[in-house]
């Protein structure tokens, strides 16, 4: 009898789960989600536009692939090069600037590579490589991972040759990689928002920040309805328009964690 009731409840749950019409799906990078930005702005989106925004947060690489499979209406990621490729391949008509923050290198308080306070990111990365200090890489084809690889290339370090030695590729998301880095006393590259919101910091702190090469812009795109006929273009565009409107930009700027602003609006 109890079982029958529970089953009926289950069936009812399934019946009501079909998505309502004013619902869109955003394929997103994880940093915006883990930092809590969506929890902060999506209720405002709902109030202003009536649109319910569901978010699937995966790495930038996975988010782009999911969007190319037409499994999302809007794409919000942070890898300029691949965003441009996405647009060039016809999956979106246009890329919109929406906001930026920056990447930071975090590391343990004992700082084995001696990079605390460095202003030059490539010099710091060379020091990590030369001292063979452990470095935890995302290794997951995410936006942060792409950025990290480009920084190694700028520093002229062949970090991949030391994979498994001092260079540790976790193949996981930002949070899992930060947990790993903290667990094994390794340096890691993180966007400022993810690190700021990460609760398991132990004695780790930001070692390198402020180099202009650590700039981290986020872009938003509407998946093209010619490539993907099931895309909810109207609602998706309303969401994007809201994000880049004066009101949306002000909302992004007003999102703070422990008194600190994590994302800086830069829509044109």
């Amino acid at each position: 009898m109890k079982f029958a009731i529970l089953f009926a409840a289950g069936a009812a749950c399934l019946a009501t789960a079909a998505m309502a019409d004013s619902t869109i799906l955003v394929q997103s990078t994880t940093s915006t989600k883990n930092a809590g930005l969506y929890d902060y702005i999506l209720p405002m989106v709902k109030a202003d536009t009536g649109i319910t925004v569901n978010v699937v947060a995966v790495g930038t690489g996975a988010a782009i692939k999911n969007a190319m499979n037409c499994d999302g209406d809007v794409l919000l990621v942070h890898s300029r090069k691949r965003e441009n490729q996405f647009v060039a391949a016809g999956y979106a008509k246009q890329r919109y600037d929406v906001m930026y923050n920056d990447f930071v290198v975090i590391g343990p308080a004992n700082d084995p590579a001696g990079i605390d306070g460095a202003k030059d990111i490539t010099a710091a990365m060379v020091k990590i490589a030369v001292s063979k200090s452990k470095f935890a890489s995302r290794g997951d084809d995410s936006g942060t991972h792409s950025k990290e690889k480009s920084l190694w290339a700028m520093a002229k370090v062949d970090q991949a040759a030391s994979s498994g030695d001092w260079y540790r590729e976790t193949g996981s998301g930002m949070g899992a990689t930060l947990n790993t880095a903290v667990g094994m006393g390794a340096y890691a590259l993180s966007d400022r928002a993810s690190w700021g919101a990460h609760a398991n910091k132990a004695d780790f702190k930001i070692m390198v920040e402020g180099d202009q090469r650590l700039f981290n812009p986020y872009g938003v795109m509407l998946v093209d309805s010619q490539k993907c006929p099931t895309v909810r273009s109207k609602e998706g565009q309303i969401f994007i328009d809201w994000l880049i409107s004066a009101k949306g930009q002000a909302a992004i700027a007003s999102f703070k964690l422990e008194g600190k602003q994590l994302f800086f609006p830069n829509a044109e």
Partner: protein
Amino acid sequence: MPIYSESFAAAFGLLASSDQDLMEILALSINVSLASLVLSCVIGLPIGAFLAMRHFPMRDFLVGVFNAMMGLPPVVVGLLVYLHLSRSGPFGWLGLLYTPQAMVIAQMILITPIIIALSCQVLEDLHEDYKDFFDSLVVPKRTALLAYIIDARYSLMTVILAGFGRAISEVGAVIIVGGNIDHLTRVMTTAIALETSKGELAMALALGFILLAISLAVNFLVQWLKASARRRAYV
């Protein structure tokens, strides 16, 4: 380790205040797991019984396949279901990806082999013991099967519990096909994965304790039903 006390406190706090988000996530976990369990039993128990009672050329091969499928990696099942339900996949037109239904499908694929393989084994053992006896009395196969099911009801209940345990505890499949969307497809295990990725380890463990408590409650409920059924039988 102080994290245990912190997590226990957090778990009790969440339960005591019957936190609305938590209740929603718990309800979805239980609903998805029960729905997939019921469907898996509807499919799996008849197949298990059939394999136990009949002998045909491919029978041993099939039993071997189902036994092996008990070890299906959830993440592979999740990936396969994703590829099929994706808008660019063969069943994309159904629009099921990132819905609870997709999670039920993935879990069904995971637990149906468990139901088939274990129920087949339970019934086969009884069949071996009683086959000659029932044959000598010219008992029809159907009647014999009914006798086995009644005789093995508690073992079969354990089989079903094993399926439920697998369904409610797996994360690899549901996080891919459900997407861990807040208020839509977030269940206990994906919430635990999310809290871990946020570095909120005490909260993640607290949710783990609650999930464990649910499993214990379900199992104790079944034990109690079993015990009370036995008491009635002896009155």
